[in-house]
């Protein structure tokens, strides 16, 4: 049967004339659809959702809006445009032309990186699959689905690379990504944070702000890869990832705004009594998601990260804008590390500290949204400041794992920690309260759940009462 690939799978990789790729995708695509039906957003197959679909990489093509049934979404394969003069910007291969094919000696390294990145994409879809039932509005429901289909497309992007460049191993890895499931004790997702549940919308917004931002930094450093198809894939993915973080930042911001409104309206600090999410709880959720996301950057001192850099496989954030030799053979970097139960500064070889440097870039980026959130609170005239906890707080991976550290960076005894943990991280009571707010989905256009403010403007400038999802 002749399939019109360019229609079914929008792409700019010449799929219609690449038989190898066609064969691989013919096999994989039905499995992907089965996965989407089984593990994607629950009970949504018949919905018409106002989604953005990328049909090309130019400014007109990447944002096409229209109603789509999600299983019929056209998951495309797009790479940012190729720069024929692009050179490897760093490491031992600095100045050499980027690779259009996988260098043999880097095959398994690249495959592992792509698989690890790819595995997170379907993972978050799985984590969020039940959220539709409690959506605070059609607007938010639509945003959730947009995030979901784009994570699906990101999976496609990574699967494309595996199919196109890694032969049989690549095909097997692509299948495995549909076999592992978030939280499945037998076939868990590769990274710990992607096996945690996303049980409520506050968690969802925090996740898209903090954890998807880790994705941004991983993608950005892979966008510096000497393996050009990977770099170009990631570059295009970044444009979509930005939307996910927008969902997170505005989501958290709208809850804060609503909380402040309720506090003022009822002249009370006890926001829970008037059905909002109190600021202390917001801070606790932030503490949790921020610290879990920091773990995703890995060990402070990492041989792998150093190797990736030297080999030209994975660069730093905005590598070409950094003013140094881009080789780092003798460069140093100062990190926080644990020594004899204290947090101390230590100067280490810059190469081995690349994870930490990326984590630092990430932390600075996270702080910007926090500033905007605090503006919202300040404008409401409420004396409260949201803060990012110390990088050593609540860590499971790296030098601080196992230490007890307060959000302001003090090393604590076990007793001090136990006495205060409930002030810093969501307790069962907090979670139960937030869950209790998650009522049945708000499905009336233009209406919003009591605990969240409407957005400043609609998607694609649609009116406030636009029907983003038709349930049919």
């Amino acid at each position, binding site marked *: 049967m002749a399939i019109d690939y360019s229609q079914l799978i929008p792409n700019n990789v010449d799929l219609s004339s690449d038989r190898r790729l066609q064969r691989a995708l013919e096999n994989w695509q039905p499995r992907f659809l089965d996965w989407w039906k089984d593990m994607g957003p629950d009970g949504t197959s018949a919905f018409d959702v106002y989604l953005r679909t990328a049909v090309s990489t130019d400014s007109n093509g990447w944002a096409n809006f229209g109603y789509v049934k999600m299983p019929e979404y056209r998951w495309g394969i797009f790479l940012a445009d190729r720069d024929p003069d692009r050179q490897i910007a760093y490491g*031992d291969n600095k100045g050499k032309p980027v690779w259009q094919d996988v260098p043999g000696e880097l095959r*398994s*390294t690249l495959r*592992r990186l792509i698989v690890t990145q790819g595995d997170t994409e379907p993972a978050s879809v799985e984590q969020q699959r039940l959220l539709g039932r409690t959506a605070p509005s059609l607007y938010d429901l639509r945003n959730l689905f947009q995030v979901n289909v784009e994570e699906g497309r990101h999976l496609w992007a990574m699967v494309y690379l595996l199919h196109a460049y890694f032969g049989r191993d690549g095909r097997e890895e692509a299948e*495995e990504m549909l*076999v*592992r499931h978030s939280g499945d*004790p*037998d*076939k*868990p997702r*590769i990274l710990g944070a992607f096996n945690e549940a996303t049980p409520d919308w506050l968690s969802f917004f925090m996740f898209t702000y903090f954890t998807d931002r880790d994705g941004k930094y991983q993608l950005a450093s892979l966008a510096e890869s000497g393996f050009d198809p990977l770099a170009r894939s990631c570059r295009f993915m970044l444009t979509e990832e930005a939307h996910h973080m927008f969902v997170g930042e505005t989501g958290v911001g709208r809850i804060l705004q609503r909380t402040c409104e309720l506090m003022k309206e009822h002249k009370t600090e006890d926001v829970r009594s008037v059905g909002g999410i109190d600021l202390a709880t917001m801070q606790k959720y932030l503490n949790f998601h921020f610290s879990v996301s920091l773990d995703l950057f890995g060990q402070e001192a990492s*041989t792998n*990260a*150093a*190797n990736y*850099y*030297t*080999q030209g496989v994975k660069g730093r954030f905005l590598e070409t804008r950094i003013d140094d030799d881009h080789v*780092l*053979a003798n460069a140093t970097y100062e990190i926080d590390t644990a020594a004899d139960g204290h947090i101390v500064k230590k100067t280490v*070889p810059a*190469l*081995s500290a*690349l994870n930490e440097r990326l984590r630092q870039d990430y932390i600075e980026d996270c702080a910007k949204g926090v500033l905007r959130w605090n503006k919202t609170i300040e404008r409401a005239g409420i004396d409260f400041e949201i803060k990012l906890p110390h990088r050593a707080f609540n860590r499971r991976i790296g030098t601080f794992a196992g230490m007890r550290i307060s959000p302001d960076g003090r090393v604590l005894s076990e007793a001090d920690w136990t006495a205060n943990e409930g002030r810093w991280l969501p307790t069962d009571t907090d979670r139960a309260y937030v869950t209790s707010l998650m009522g049945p989905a708000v499905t009336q256009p233009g209406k919003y759940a009591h605990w969240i403010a409407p957005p400043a403007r609609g998607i694609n400038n649609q009116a406030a009462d636009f029907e983003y999802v038709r349930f049919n």
Partner: protein
Amino acid sequence: MAEAPIDFRTSPEHYRHWKLALEGGVAYLTMDVNEEGGLKPGYKLKLNSYDLGVDIELADAVQRLRFEHPEIGAVVIRSQRDRVFCSGANINMLGLSSHDHKVNFCKFTNETRLAIEDASHHSGQRYICSINGIAAGGGYELALACEEILLADDGNSAVSLPELPLLAVLPGTGGLTRLVDKRLVRRDHADFFCTTAEGLRGKRAREWRLVDRLVPPSKLAEETKKIAEETAARSARPKNAKGITLPRVDRQIDGDTIRYAHLTVEIDRGQRAARLRIMGPCAAPPADAAAIQTQGTAFWPLALARDLDDAMMHLRLNETEIGTWVLQSQGDGALVEAYDALLAREASNWLVKEIVLYWKRSLKRLDVSSRSLIALVEPGSCFTGTLLEIVLAADRSYMLDGAVEGSNLPAAMLRLTPMNFGAYPMGNGLTRLATRFLYDPGHVDELRKETGKPLDAEAADAAGLVTFTPDDIDWDDEVRLAIEERAGFSPDGLIGMEANLRFAGPETMETKIFARLSAWQNWIFQRPNATGPEGALKLYGTGKQSKYDRKRA
């Protein structure tokens, strides 16, 4: 010795890296390496990686299970760590270690792996490996030493031998040999596997024979337990027997003298030689196996084996410049013969079996200790049967012909016992006698007829059991010259020559493991591609890329 000597004596209450738990007929050896518990400073034992200290505990546990727990018929090796089984020998430790420490480390870990296989094959304690995560390099080699490998089928758990692609060296504990010789992995599959740093997992790992079973992680503990319990039930070990406890081997180090209950070691730094003087039994053997059990570790053959084993490990690691071991004995050969007769008579008893197997392993340790071995058979010595194996293990032996003027010690005699004809095979699978007389296999049968007869120097010489037989006038000079000459040669040259000459006869998995370790691995360890300033092993962890000399040698 600038640093404190490495002590091989330990016991479960002192373990820092392993937990030993017993449930019915199954022992669980759970690896949980203490990151901060490295034997030397300068590295962290991350991700269940190991150094010699970790392996000393493992070796102790393997040994204890045999002697202290006759009721145990299966041993499970597993990890305490989530998603990590064992990531092999610690690379930073290797990078910081001197060449001789690396080799000693590899040798000891190899002996531990072989002891595990010996327990599976001969003691009825079958080892099962339960892999819950990454088993890389030495981690997978540890699994290979077990008889059955279970792997979590979670899409993540993998077995690998990444030494070549990551470090430009070879697996150091028999990994390559066991792949093709033990697990009978096809060579092309093995080739792919050993060049793929991340290794293999799931279906392909099983299809390629790298593991035996795939188990969903949620079922792994249960399935491991089930298999282990079935294995234990099939074991021939006596379920109701009582084990004997192994107390700490007692020794006093006094300057250059080390005193054990049945062995004295005297180090002569000028001659770069150590004299190991073995003391024969003081009394007649006990009546039977039950009486042996009562004596426990005081039973002379067991006590001596423990002394000798500890002395060898100590000298190997802590006295690396002492290149010659001079092997001597004193005591009553007739008593040694009586002990051998008891061991032969009670051969079916589990404890006697363990004692004989222990002697077999200790004698093999002597064979691979990379020291020049010179045996001196002097008046008053007792090289009979089991102890005669020590003379046969030596590169060269001197037997004093006749008595010494002015001494009332009886003239030196050698004596064969049935223990010389099969109880103590070498790594090549042959007895030391068979290996010695490859040119005339019939001669071994001839010697069988000499069993029990005292052989004086002339007879021993005629039987081919000793090298030279000087009389008391020549003795001192001959012996001195032999030892001093030895001290003058290149230690490296000697090690190579001796190993070449010692292991005549057929190859076995065991001889291949040691030979290839000492030839290939030691060569590669010395090459700039591994340990030069731009070598892979040297640069590992720095993020810098190794630069290889591309010439094939």
